[in-house]
């Protein structure tokens, strides 16, 4: 199964989003959250992301990483450089973080491939909340 890593500037935001995403798939998809600096402030930490990816890759065959924005994207890209060959098992998606994590979780729960889960997460930006 594919796991999901939510990366936000805020630990609370990351955890909350991961909680919602996990619930969408009935808790069967491994969803982790990482956010904040090492001192607990707002920001992102490369070592924190490396550690979270390592943990997820022990239980998942691949990971879709959903960053919020800005340094979360740069920190995520930097983190991949520390993973060696395992970097191939991680895809960073360009999606709104909550919607992307939710849709990735649902798609992962039906056993889809890494590429498919990432693609569906990326399509989250097309979700309309108010129309129809």
């Amino acid at each position, binding site marked *: 199964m594919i796991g999901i890593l939510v990366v936000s*500037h805020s630990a609370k935001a990351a955890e909350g989003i991961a909680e919602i995403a996990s619930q969408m798939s009935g808790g069967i998809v491994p969803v982790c959250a990482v956010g*904040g*600096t*090492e*001192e607990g*402030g*707002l*920001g*992102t*930490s*490369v*070592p*924190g992301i490396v550690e979270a990816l390592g943990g997820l890759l022990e239980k998942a065959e691949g990971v879709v990483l959903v960053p919020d924005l*800005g*340094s979360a994207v*740069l*920190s995520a*890209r*930097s983190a991949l*450089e520390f993973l060696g060959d395992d970097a191939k098992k991680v895809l960073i998606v360009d999606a709104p973080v909550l919607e992307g994590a939710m849709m990735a979780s649902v798609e992962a729960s039906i056993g889809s491939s890494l590429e498919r889960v990432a693609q569906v997460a990326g399509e989250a930006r097309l979700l309309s909340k108010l129309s129809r």
Partner: protein
Amino acid sequence: MPMNVEQARKVFERVTEAIISHKEYLTELDSAIGDADHGINMSRGFTKAQEKIKAGAYTEVGGVFKDVAMTLMGSVGGASGPLYGTLFMRMSMKFGTKQEVDSADFVEAFEEGLKGILALGKAQLEDKTMVDALTPALEAMKAAASNGEDLPAVLEKGIASAEEGMKRTIPLVAKKGRASYLGERSAGHQDPGATSTFLILSAMLEGLRE
């Protein structure tokens, strides 16, 4: 004059002091076009890095650079963490097991570092980022090193070009980072990232000259 482990430690001591003493200035520049956290983030990161290398025992110059890199990546919090972290990490990898590095080693490593930053942040020249100071600095240092100048002389050339590059960011419209959300309104302000690059290089030379 090459740089040994003790000098590398001095270099980062001076860089940390320079960043801390310009914390307000960097934050002020960033508040005009960004999220007003560059000075605070950089001070936090370099203070942590300074604590780390003060306590560390090193036999290789790359070891000092690597510890600085890892600490910045973990504790800066903003985009400058992975960016400067990548610069110093790539430099440390290029230094390998060298116990001292000369101007040619330094420039080669700096080039690797800048390549890493470009791959990571995907900024181009004139996007109003640190790349606008780093790129001319590298070019000037390359030229000086190939003329056989020593490390302090090479850094001096790099600093002069970084300063010009930094000033050239003033009229530019930002294409990357928070400042890019402001569009045209980002013009007329000096880029904080290009400024911290200039400060870092200047402080490195100070440390080296002690």
